[in-house]
């Protein structure tokens, strides 16, 4: 809509000449273009204050002058000024403008929205809380439905164990267990070392170095081993379950399975749950071992508790009950991790983007649930007197 292609960067100007009779003159000049938007946005300040209210009522305003260039931005601005004058009761006469510029203004004036469209009312805090609550409940419901399906289908398959897809179970055990040994072992070893350092730093002041064994052993077996392993597995395996099932949903592989007459639950989900229930206790035992070893290394080299003394004392401070109190939690963690991973994967719909989002949600939820369950176990064991 530029009248004049060549840009010479002349800011737009506007001036009102109030004659003594009923005809006023509005003189325009410069470039009314997007490039001049800064000047344009404040251009009505060069008009007399209160103009457009009632000062011009009954007057005729002749718009004239030489506009060098006019584009959509300039035309909108100009049309708004014209609107303002007309609302103030003036008659606006555009005859003096070139035909093309006049056409644009005529097209726009009277059709512009109010300068500031009122924002849609913002959602109140209560409404927000309500919406989030409903969403969480829906999510919780889906989780319960998933548990229900597990119980019904799993229960049936336990009665006919040869129908369980053992080949898939074995493959999942390898992926979730064997290949996780490295990371679980390394991290447990390091955490064992860290615990021994922290315990030792305090205990050494009292010459009670030997108590490092008590501290490291009890914390590792009862809490750190099971919890750390579960969290690593949630991040490593739970997320891969979500990603795998989610991708299979997107590529219609899940539908393809159904069309072949195979239940995705039997083929994909149940083997994962069974595998993780087998793997997590085993991984935890491994993590316990390496955690104790890490503690032993620090105790020996930093706090003068030799390996012999350390491992001699171990059976005195912990017994099978301590180990079992840690291990008994792990199948429950396993079910939680596998269920959340699979559920989030099966809920993926739409695009590849949804897979990434579901994976994140799956890790957060699984980690959260594992820690909540662990807290629950602690309370329970405490009530039982352990």
């Amino acid at each position, binding site marked *: 809509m530029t009248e004049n292609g060549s840009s010479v960067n002349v800011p737009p100007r506007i001036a009102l000449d109030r004659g003594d009779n009923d005809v006023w003159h509005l003189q325009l000049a410069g470039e009314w273009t997007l490039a001049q938007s800064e000047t344009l946005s404040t251009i009505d300040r060069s008009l007399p204050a209160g103009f457009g209210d009632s000062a011009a009522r009954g007057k005729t305003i002749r718009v004239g002058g030489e506009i060098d260039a006019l584009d959509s931005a300039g035309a909108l601005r100009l049309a708004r000024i014209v609107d303002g004058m007309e609302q103030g009761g003036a008659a606006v006469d555009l005859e003096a403008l070139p035909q093309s510029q006049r056409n644009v203004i005529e097209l726009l004036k*009277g*059709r*512009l*929205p109010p300068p500031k*469209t009122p924002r849609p009312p913002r959602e109140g805090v209560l409404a927000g809380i309500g919406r989030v609550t409903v969403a969480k409940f829906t999510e919780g419901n889906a989780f319960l439905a998933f548990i229900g399906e597990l119980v019904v289908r799993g229960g049936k398959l336990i009665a006919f164990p040869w129908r369980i897809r053992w080949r898939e179970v074995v493959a999942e055990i390898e992926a979730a267990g064997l290949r996780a040994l490295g990371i679980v072992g390394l991290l447990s070893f390091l955490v064992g070392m860290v615990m021994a350092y922290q315990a030792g730093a305090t205990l050494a002041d009292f010459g009670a170095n030997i108590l490092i064994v008590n501290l490291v052993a009890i914390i590792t077996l009862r809490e750190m081993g099971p919890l750390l392993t579960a969290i690593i597995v949630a991040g490593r395996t739970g997320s891969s379950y979500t990603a795998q099932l989610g991708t299979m949903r997107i*590529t*219609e*592989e899940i*539908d*393809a399975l*159904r*069309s*072949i*007459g*195979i*239940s995705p639950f039997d083929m994909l989900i149940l083997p994962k749950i069974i595998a993780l229930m087998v793997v997590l206790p085993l991984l935890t035992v491994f993590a316990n071992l390496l955690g104790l070893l890490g503690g032993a290394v620090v105790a020996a080299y930093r706090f003068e508790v030799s390996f012999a003394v350390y491992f001699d004392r171990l059976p005195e401070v912990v017994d099978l009950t301590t180990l079992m109190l840690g291990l008994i939690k792990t199948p429950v963690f396993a079910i939680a991790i596998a269920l959340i991973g699979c559920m989030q994967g099966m809920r993926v719909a739409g695009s590849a983007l949804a897979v990434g989002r579901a994976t994140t949600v799956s890790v957060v939820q699984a980690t959260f649930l594992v820690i909540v369950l662990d807290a629950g176990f602690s309370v329970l064991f405490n009530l039982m007197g352990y």
Partner: protein
Amino acid sequence: MIELDGVHFSRGAQVIFDGVDMHFGRGEVTVVLGPSGTGKTTLLRLIGGQVRPASGRVMVDGIEVARARRKALYALRRRMGVLFQNGALFTDLTVGENVAFPLRAHSRLDEALIRRIVLFKLEAVGLRSARDKYPAALSGGMARRAALARAMALDPEIMLYDEPFAGQDPVSMGVLLRLIRRLNDALGLTSIVVTHDVKEAMSIADRVIVIAGGRVIGQGTPEEVRAQREQEPALAQFLDGAADGPLNAAEDESPLSADLGLGGGQ
């Protein structure tokens, strides 16, 4: 073979099917045509029992799909082969293993026999040499043919094709068209092809059903459907691929000025 009786189906507020009746004859290739988003894929899901109609019945060989028990439903699905839009091959298995998958899942055949069946199926779609390739290494047309071989592995009686021609070059489209027709006749299948490629699909169809806006707007042999265009402007628009007509009239009723915030409008 397959009957839809006054089927209603909606997704949220959006009505997908508003009381449609359809009939798919045994041994025929029936092509279901319709603009994108008219529920063609939903139709296949209804037949496969993955979704249930709000009202009305879907009958497959005398069995009401929505009422079938889990076991009967899975047995029924085993009699149907489905070719998915993008093939949906299992990406962690080779082409040969993909085709063998349904056989291993549902039969106790020994490996030598499975191998021979797989080779036979792959030969039928012209992919015998690709049996050890992974799906990622296949072109779009090859992937679709491999998926077709897998869908045929259990010798289904009914074949459902979901947009088999989408994104195919003319040559592989021609190959697929000929395959669909040949397999149907050689094996005595009942085939349903869901697509929006009018001309190509009409060329192999025994019967054509055109759906739009939640209802059937044309049904019959290709000639009959072409003849019905006079009474049904939407059908004429779809068959001709015209840009203006009843099919997109309802698409955007609100004037542009309303969205721009310009009061009044022209």
